[in-house]
């Protein structure tokens, strides 16, 4: 038995994996031991900075998951790429803001979080989610139900809707006549969580609000998992993802399931909008930003898979925060573009060896 000659094809086929592993290893070594000319220096010198960056990444991933899981849910079941997802998020953020203003008599000014009770945050978020769920339901019933199966046409329809919604947001929000239309606004976290807690690890103090955001993301993930894998509706949804026609032929009402899933997906966008309004504030360019984030997360993770969305959120959160914190800061021509360039690199890496994303399957 002679060993076959060195096979170039195997090398070429495994090249992307090798490059990806090499890049990951290099990134780890860079962050842990090297990282010259950066704000923090290598992680072994400054473990608290490393831990902070890691926490920033993971908590951002929680928010990313809330938004992107809605996008992924809609796509997974209906093959609808909802290009209006960012607009739904933005409108949800503004609705939550208006609701909080109304509950706290803010009068167009940002209220201090010390004056915001837990309910004055939760109720606006629920109202925003419910309102956008209704809007999403209307869009689905009016435009998407009868164009089922024409995925590019449906993408174009949702793009048209996003154009209209985005322009109407600028026309009407914020509602207060004292504030210029289209201004950036932000809601406030409830006072009870807007504080730092001591984690007793490397002396790190971290925002309880951001940790709550992570908890909310995990909660949404668990709820989605229980819904999809432990209830009858979830079973029908998963059956519909695998074989829509067969599910329908078994006498199950797939149309009702589609409507529910679309409403839930839209509600998750609005919930994400309510959270983001407190996390960083919303303005009329937020929709494009979050459409990008959702796209990157689901393209990297794989469309229509909860675990893919988790993986995509984590990877994107890590790349986004570490590329800011652990790259050289030289001169004033710096740093804003790093996350964007590295986001593209992440996308290119993943697509090079998994064209449908890490957990994705061919449609």
């Amino acid at each position, binding site marked *: 038995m002679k060993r076959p000659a060195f096979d170039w094809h195997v090398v070429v086929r495994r090249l992307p994996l090798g490059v990806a592993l090499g890049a990951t290893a290099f990134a780890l070594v860079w962050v842990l031991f090297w990282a010259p000319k950066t704000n923090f220096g290598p992680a072994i010198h400054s473990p608290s900075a490393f831990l902070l960056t890691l926490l920033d990444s993971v908590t951002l991933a929680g928010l990313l998951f809330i938004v992107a899981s809605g996008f992924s849910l809609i796509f997974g079941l209906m093959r609808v790429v909802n290009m209006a997802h960012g607009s739904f998020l933005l409108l949800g953020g503004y609705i939550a803001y208006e609701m909080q203003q109304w509950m706290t008599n803010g009068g167009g000014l940002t209220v201090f979080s010390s004056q915001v009770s837990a309910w004055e945050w939760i109720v606006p978020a629920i109202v925003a989610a419910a309102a956008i769920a209704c809007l999403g339901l209307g869009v689905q019933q009016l435009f998407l139900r009868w164009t089922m199966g*024409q995925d590019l046409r449906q993408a174009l329809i949702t*793009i*048209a809707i996003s*154009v209209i919604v985005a*322009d109407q947001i600028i026309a009407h929000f914020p509602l207060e006549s004292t504030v210029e239309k289209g201004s950036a606004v932000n809601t406030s976290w409830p006072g009870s969580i807007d504080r730092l807690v001591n984690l007793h690890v490397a002396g790190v103090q971290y925002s309880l609000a951001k940790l709550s955001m992570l908890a909310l993301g995990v909660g949404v993930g668990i709820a989605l998992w229980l819904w999809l894998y432990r209830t009858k509706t979830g079973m029908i949804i998963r059956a519909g993802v695998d074989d829509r026609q067969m599910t329908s032929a078994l006498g199950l009402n797939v149309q009702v399931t589609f409507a529910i899933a679309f409403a839930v997906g839209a509600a998750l966008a609005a919930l994400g909008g309510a959270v983001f309004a407190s996390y960083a504030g919303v303005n009329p360019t937020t929709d494009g930003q979050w*459409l990008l984030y959702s796209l*990157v997360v689901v393209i990297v993770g794989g469309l229509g898979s909860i675990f893919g969305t988790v993986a995509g959120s984590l990877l994107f959160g890590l790349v986004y925060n570490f590329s800011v914190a652990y790259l050289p800061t030289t001169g004033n*021509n710096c740093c804003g573009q790093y996350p*964007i360039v590295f986001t593209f690199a992440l996308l290119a890496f993943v697509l090079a060896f998994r064209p449908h994303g890490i957990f994705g399957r061919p449609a």
Partner: protein
Amino acid sequence: MKALAVDKSFVERAIGATALVLVALGPLIFRGYFAHTILTQTFWLGIAAASLIFLSAYGGMISLAQTALYGIAAFALGNLVGRGEVKGLHLGYSPWLSVVLAIAITTALGLVFGAVASRSTGIYFLMITLTYAVIVFYFVGQTPLLGGFSGVSGLQDYTPGIVGNPVAHPNRLYYIALVTAVGVYVAIRYVVRTPFGISLMGIRDDPVRMGSLGYNAALHRTLAFTFAAFIASLAGILFGWWNGVVAPDHVGLSATVDLLIVAVIGGLGRIEGAWLGAFTFVVINNYVRGFGFLNNHFFTSLGLDASHFATYIGVIFLLIVLVSPDGLIGLWDRLWSLARRQGGAARSAAAAAGATAPRG
């Protein structure tokens, strides 16, 4: 049979030739504003839309990165030719060298973008190219070295001699844009008839079968995308001269969607649709803004006054996608076959006395 029916492609050619003669005499017969603002913009916007329609019609790929690519060409041009007084790198190269370099840079980036996206199709391709578009937008906006958020200006001051200053000599830019547009149209029509174009269409229709016949689908898509990037870069150069300024907003999400709207209004199936769509879009964009009756309290309170023009564009776009997904060209095709079917019905009624009636 054929005697009664007028040949459709003959009618289309006649319309096309008439339009070409009209625009060739453009500056002589139209008012300056119409020629230099509406038509010149139609030409370059149509070139950009043609690159999108080329990918969609012959490669089955709807790319949202074409705006980003023409923006890259314009940004590259601005940075290469600019001297001290404009933002950016002010490398101060000669205009022709800068044009060639800008086109080369854009085409090379198109190759990279195309290679990364080449294994994805359909809706995945759309999403990946949208990601490119947003990434380019943030990159040019957040890199002060390349112009930053206000972009680069003064492109009209550093044009090759044949173009001159587009503000002082708008007719020159008009004809250069026209000639480029015609050249792009001819080039695309030529490329799709080459063996490359034929196999590209084969891959569009059945990638698995073409793959088993030994064609490299990903390579064909990559090369098609690179060619489209080259066409888009031409649009970007013309845009840079025409507008004088290129800022991140010109490659932002709404500009990306605008180009898609242009292509969809024209029709994603045929190259001619690019300029038809561009003309329709530019005319609506320039004239509906001036509709005074929208500027009263009623429309303002609804957010429907003329400044909220994007809503109207969005509604028109939505209507076209709902009513005629193939755009105006598709509408024309359908009207034509409807008219022919009615004519055919009359003929078959006459022939019914004979044997089996032919179907219209």
